């Protein structure tokens, strides 16, 4: 189940990278982050959330502040 979901996430993100689709990158990395939060794997979740934040920042995505707030909540950004 995990492997299959992770493959789906990886495929989605690869496609978003190939097409430089920043909105999809933000969404994909956020979904990946949520996936690992559900597994209580905070380090991996924050890895993906950081990726989401970078693309949100660069694209001035409406969720950039929300994403950063979660990173700060986990002590992963200041």
């Amino acid at each position, binding site marked *: 189940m995990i492997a299959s979901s992770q493959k789906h996430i990886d495929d989605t993100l690869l496609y978003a990278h190939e097409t430089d689709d920043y909105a999809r990158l933000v969404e994909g990395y956020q979904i990946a982050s949520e996936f690992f939060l559900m597994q209580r794997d905070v380090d991996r979740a924050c890895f993906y959330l*950081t990726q989401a934040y*970078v693309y949100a920042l660069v*694209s*001035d995505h409406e969720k950039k502040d929300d994403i950063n707030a979660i990173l700060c909540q986990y002590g992963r950004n200041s």
Partner: protein
Amino acid sequence: MKHIIKDTLANVRQTINKARGLPNDFYTSQEVFAYEKENFFFKGWFAVCSRHKLSVPGAVYPITFFDLPLLVVRDKDDVIRVFQNTCRHRGMILVDEPTKTNGIVRCPYHSWCYSLSGELRISPHVGGPGKNVHEDMCKEDLGLFSFRCQEYMGVVFVNISGDAPDFEEYIGSLKKKWHEFQRPLYYAEQDSSFTLNIDCNWKLAVENYCESYHLPWVHPGLNSYSRLEDHYDIIDEEGHRFSGQGTHFYQPTVGEDGKKFDIFPALSSQWDKAAEYIALYPNVLFGVHKDHVFSIVLQPISESKTCEHIDIYYASEEMVSDEWKEKRKANCKLWKDIFEEDIFVVEGMQRGRYGPLFDGGKFSPAMDNATHFFHRWVVSRV
């Protein structure tokens, strides 16, 4: 510079009737070129680019001067800033091409992100995967390196050393002379700029620009409406920062449809038929007319190569609308044709300076004042 004997430069300092021009080394030597970088450019103010290269808020424009990578940015509040185009992490070039951002510059290597005011916003995974903080990482200390910058007549100027005199002191005498042109300039990016890559030292572009002596020979087309005898020298006796030429007979000739570009408002009658062409040292050439203005930023590439960035500006918003596109294109072509006519002379003077017997040349006491003034400025900085 050690091998350039003082006697040679003393010859340049003489009055024009006795003076010689700058020695060959000032055009052919890498050592002199390196000296000029520090002493003519980086310790003072020099032109970087037209402000209009940054057409919208969020625009970023990379340009290199003497191998120094610069990044000119325009933030959402229209403030222009100039940074070193280098990431604080691994020294990666941040931006390779002019582009529009959403207010963030992201290093393509490890995605360190900077705001357009230069602050480091995030250094992702810097404390390990998913950890964007580390006790030894202080964001406040890791912003982009910035340089003082100012604007005049649509051009961005920078001071690299950080300790040049105030910009107002640098620009003061020209600003005073051309105070009537202190107005908004309008620009149509798609048809009002071009670049010329020329095989000559940057100083030859300055010298050729600021004298009118060559006009009847190199630009015979100008004879019909801008004759040699209509021209006069311009010398900045007050600030010693520019020289050039003016004409008492400027007559716009663009197009045959009878339409005329709008004129800058509230100009005095002096400008009804006058136009002036000034080289502001070290590296920007301006031309002002009642109906348009242009700037040429000289980007020295090497001791024998220069890139000229030409941008033309107009007097009203309407003049940059689509309706005036064909007329603007004609005006741009007119100037491009004229500047291209100059290429063979500046490149020819460059090649001529590899002849060791050339002694700097003998100035015309009547016609070469603006060039001689520039040479004196050069030696005043050696």
